[in-house]
């Protein structure tokens, strides 16, 4: 549902078939509004919110509204946010590795570590994509070869030593010592700076599918 609600107006319906009549009436009312180009009202129209922000002229400044909201909160009175947090879903924890020494491991980061020059032009904020970079013959990430393009933290330390974000140097050491069995030959990087949940979910699904197809069994994901 989360995938379609932005493009399609979805009426809220009951879980039970007894609620079908009401559900159909809501759908009809929504359809009529859309045909006549009337604005949808989240509090009244019983549809799944589309996550859109609407501009309007307010009588009071943001500072006044924020203080009022805070006073309401302190007094235990009802108040309504003007900017709802995105909803994050939950996934049940995956089963653990039964034997680390036989496991294939992959590295992923939202810390914006990319080959120097940022060949895929991943955005420093609100990233629309992730990059796939071969580490097949790379022992460690050098400052000459890699950089951080993340716009949400001071990249000085990551640029001095990119292993501080994507720890390839010690991962290789541990591989040599056979702590785990093999390393997926690519790492995946995006920028987790104001990146939308919907985009991030898509990146996760795409990367996950590739990793499963390559027989990867566990992932280290670094966020900054």
């Amino acid at each position: 549902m989360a995938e379609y609600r932005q493009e399609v107006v979805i009426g809220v319906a009951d879980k039970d078939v007894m609620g079908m009549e009401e559900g159909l009436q809501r759908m009809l009312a929504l359809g009529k509004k859309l045909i006549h180009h009337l604005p949808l009202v989240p509090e009244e129209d019983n549809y799944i919110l589309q996550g859109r922000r609407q501009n309007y002229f307010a009588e009071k400044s943001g500072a006044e509204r924020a203080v009022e909201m805070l006073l309401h909160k302190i007094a235990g009175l009802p108040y309504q946010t003007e900017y709802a947090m995105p909803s994050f879903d939950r996934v049940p924890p995956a089963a653990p590795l039964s034997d680390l020494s036989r496991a294939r491991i992959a590295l992923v980061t939202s810390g914006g570590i990319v080959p120097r020059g940022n060949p895929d032009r991943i955005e420093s904020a609100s990233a629309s994509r992730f990059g796939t970079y071969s580490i097949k013959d790379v022992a460690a990430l050098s400052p000459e070869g890699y950089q951080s393009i993340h716009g949400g933290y001071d990249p000085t330390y990551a640029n001095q030593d990119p292993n501080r974000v994507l720890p390839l140097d010690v991962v290789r050491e541990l591989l040599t010592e056979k702590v785990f069995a093999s390393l997926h030959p690519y790492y995946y990087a995006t920028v987790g700076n104001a990146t939308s949940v919907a985009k991030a979910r898509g990146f996760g699904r795409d990367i996950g599918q590739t990793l499963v197809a390559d027989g990867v069994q566990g992932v280290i994901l670094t966020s900054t």
Partner: protein
Amino acid sequence: MGLPVAHACSIVPISKTVGANRIIPTVAIPHPFGDPLKSREEEKSLRRELVLKALQALTVPISEQTVFS
């Protein structure tokens, strides 16, 4: 089904909010797997410890969000 993921991050409350299940607290936002104030050798051994902790976290059965501190 799914892959176990060790989420190495410095702000644990964010990791919890977004729903990570295996959480490994790290050093700081701009250098999760390092500490520029330490010598190169000390820093690398710190990184090694953290990566080992992340790998170990992948082997632990959990039923809910867990912080491996």
